[in-house]
């Protein structure tokens, strides 16, 4: 008993130190309390989502877990891939750094579907940082960072079961097993399966609204904790196999694959991940530690979209060594280290071979000053050498100041650089008759130059107590300025997509105003208004980014009954998203039915969920998505002639499926 307590205490302590590298120390400590936390003392503009937040929506995988959070916009899944894309500050996920336990996870080949490969039940917490982010994890992040922490074997419960079924005929099953092998070793086995077996066509266009799908996803983690010596270590093994089929209802892959009998698509992905993490805290100096991470993964996607074939295999190796310590005292902290990344891509678009090998090595140093009162600053820099991006510096700055009680003012600035994987990131465009054109200027990635952007942000939050109830309000403003960008031009006509280096200006401004309040006991409201001004100098026109609403409104209402002694409780959740009109890609030259107006209509989408907790071991939930049943009028252009010149499945600005209802259960053995 005593032993267990001591290990737990130590672990709690270790996890604090783990996070010092991300300056997430403050919120991590209290992660058991609220489902969504914003700290007044953190230097960066970071929100922590605990696993409780993920229980507020259907939330089957990571891509779907942000529906109740205004910082991240979740797009509507297109008919082809069924995958929801996310945006932050108006920029799509390639401009975000998405990490799993601080190891870059959704990047390169996995950019389009990677987030749907992380089941929601595996997640312990998510940290969302707006703006530049830390230099510790790399140079690629531009508009923000999302880090996911998975359930730690030592804190895990012996058995967990989650089953889910929905009216769009998706079934999911999650089972978790855990064993504490000795006082030092614990292991968890997570098994996830999901499938969609029946075909849906609610809009009668002859095409599936959602892909038929099958996913098997298995993760085995091992955790070693030696309290006495200060060691914590993780070893993870993971295998994932995902198959999707979409296209016309009559499409039969065995018979019709790569023919013009019927239009159809299959996307098959197989992924293997092995990662290790070793963390050592100097026993006499809890402020000093080092951490060594290594990850290997192989991601293999084989797919075709009608007659377009797209295959990409990425084998990556990532290594990161971090040393954390102090200068004089804990008011002055630093993190320093090295990292190395290797990516081998085998990429084929039809018969064209785009295979390549990327290598980069870098060193970073991050200094944190905290006056233990109202001011802190994080100054970070890194230098990297990359075989295609060259040698370059990445500076990042975060400042926090508390001008008065319960108020916090933050500023951040930083630079990011990345090479755009134009095919992997835009593969929804393969589901169209568009011709891919690259304006080759002799750059090193697909003939294009790397993308470089600066991001600046200012935010203010004030917490308050009104009529004895807690609330907060605030705003944040961010600007991303592209020095170079790989422009994806959909304004040159519906029969092509043109990729070229930015010539002129490209920027993204985003403003978010938030108000949250406890209306009555156990009744909370969250509201946010978001304004996006995103413009790019395209080749022939200066225009806003397509499929991006300029105005958005978000509201969430949550009510919980008092938790009874026997563990019984009701929870209610309601979320509304209103989206203003969105600019659509140019389709005017298509005749009649196959052309769309310049702008989409504005609309709103409502979700709700009711959870009944019977006891600490059993609960059920039912919910509805898009209960107002808003549907995009025409989801697929040229659906009557899919091998014709006007076919396009990529213009999706609203839900296609209409209303969807689901139910699920959770069973825990503690």
């Amino acid at each position, binding site marked *: 008993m*005593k*032993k267990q*307590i*001591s*290990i737990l*205490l*130590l672990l709690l*302590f270790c996890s604090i130190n783990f996070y010092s590298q991300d300056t997430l120390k403050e919120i991590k400590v209290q992660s058991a309390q609220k489902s969504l936390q914003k700290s007044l003392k953190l230097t960066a503009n970071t929100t922590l989502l605990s696993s409780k937040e993920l229980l507020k929506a259907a939330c089957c995988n990571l891509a779907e877990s942000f529906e109740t959070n205004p910082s991240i916009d979740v797009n509507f899944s297109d008919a082809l891939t069924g995958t929801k894309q996310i945006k932050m500050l108006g920029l799509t996920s390639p401009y975000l750094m998405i990490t799993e336990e601080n190891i870059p996870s959704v990047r390169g080949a996995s950019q389009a579907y990677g987030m749907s490969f992380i089941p929601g039940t595996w997640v312990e917490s998510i940290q969302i940082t707006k703006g530049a982010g830390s230099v510790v994890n790399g140079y690629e992040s531009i508009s923000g960072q999302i880090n996911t922490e998975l359930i730690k074997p030592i804190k895990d419960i012996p058995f967990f079961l989650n089953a889910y079924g929905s009216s769009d005929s998706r079934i999911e099953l999650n089972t978790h097993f855990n064993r504490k092998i000795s*006082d030092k070793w614990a292991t968890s086995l997570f098994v996830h399966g999901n499938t969609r077996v029946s075909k849906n066509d609610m809009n009668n266009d002859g095409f599936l609204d959602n892909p038929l799908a099958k996913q098997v996803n298995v993760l085995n983690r091992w955790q070693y904790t030696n*309290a*006495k010596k*200060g060691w914590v270590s993780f070893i993870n093994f993971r295998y994932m196999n995902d198959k999707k089929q979409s296209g016309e209802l009559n499409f039969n892959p065995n018979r019709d694959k790569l023919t013009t009998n019927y239009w159809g698509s299959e996307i098959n992905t197989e992924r293997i991940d092995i990662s290790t993490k070793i963390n050592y805290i100097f*026993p*006499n*100096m*809890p*402020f000093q530690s080092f951490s060594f991470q290594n990850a290997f993964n192989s991601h293999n996607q084989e797919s075709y979209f009608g007659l377009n074939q797209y295959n990409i295999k990425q084998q990556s190796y990532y290594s990161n060594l971090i040393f954390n310590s*102090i200068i*004089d*005292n*804990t*008011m002055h902290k630093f993190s320093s280290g090295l990292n190395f990344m290797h990516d081998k891509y085998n990429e084929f678009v039809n018969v064209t071979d785009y295979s390549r090998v990327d290598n980069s090595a870098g060193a970073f140093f991050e200094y944190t000053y905290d*006056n*233990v*009162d*109202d001011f802190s600053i994080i100054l970070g820099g890194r230098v990297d050498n990359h075989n295609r991006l060259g040698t370059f510096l990445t500076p990042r700055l975060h400042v926090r100041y508390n001008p008065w009680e319960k108020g916090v003012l933050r500023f951040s600035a930083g630079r990011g650089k990345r090479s755009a994987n134009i095919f992997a990131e835009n593969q929804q465009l393969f589901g169209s008759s568009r011709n891919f054109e690259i304006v080759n200027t002799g750059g090193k990635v697909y003939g294009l130059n790397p993308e470089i952007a600066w991001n600046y942000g200012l935010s203010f939050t004030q917490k308050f107590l009104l009529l004895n109830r807690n609330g907060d309000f605030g705003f944040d403003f961010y600007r991303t300025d592209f020095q170079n960008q790989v422009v994806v031009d959909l304004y040159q006509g519906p029969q092509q997509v043109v990729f070229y280096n930015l010539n002129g200006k490209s920027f993204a401004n985003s403003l978010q105003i938030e108000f949250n309040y406890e209306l009555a006991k156990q009744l909370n409201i969250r509201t946010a208004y978001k304004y996006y001004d995103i413009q790019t100098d395209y080749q022939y026109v200066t225009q806003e980014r397509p499929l991006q609403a300029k105005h958005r409104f978000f509201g969430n209402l949550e009510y919980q009954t008092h938790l009874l002694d026997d563990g019984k409780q009701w929870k209610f959740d309601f979320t509304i998203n209103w989206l203003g009109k969105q600019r659509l890609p140019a389709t005017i030259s298509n005749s009649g039915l196959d052309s769309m107006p310049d702008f989409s209509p504005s609309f709103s989408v409502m979700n709700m969920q009711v959870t009944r907790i019977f006891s600490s071991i059993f609960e059920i939930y039912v919910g509805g998505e898009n209960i107002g049943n808003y549907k995009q009028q025409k989801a697929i252009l040229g659906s009557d002639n899919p091998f014709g010149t006007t076919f396009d499945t990529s213009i999706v600005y609203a839900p296609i499926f209409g209303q969807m209802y689901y139910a699920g259960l959770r069973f825990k053995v503690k």
Partner: protein
Amino acid sequence: MKNLFLTAVVFLAGFSMQAQEKSNKNAKYTIEVNGNCEMCQSRIQKAAYSVSGVKSATWSFETHELNLILNEEKATLLTVKTAIAKAGYDTDEVKSTVESYDNLPGCCQYERK
């Protein structure tokens, strides 16, 4: 098992097992400091950090305990206590002067023992 537990306690709460060793660069102490509010936390910690050689100082509002890690080549526990008293807070060995106590902001004026 007991050992392990003890080590963990030492590690966390920072009772100084190594206090006897001469000039420990990372000596750990826990002392009681009276205080009332969150503002006190920042004032007490700041006072501790003002002593050169104090590497880490965390004061808990709940327990009124100040956890210290200090380099004994540079500082002694007494100098830290003196600095804290100067900021207006009493410790077991060193009491604050009436003057410094009165200088505390209203919310920080704890009940003196």
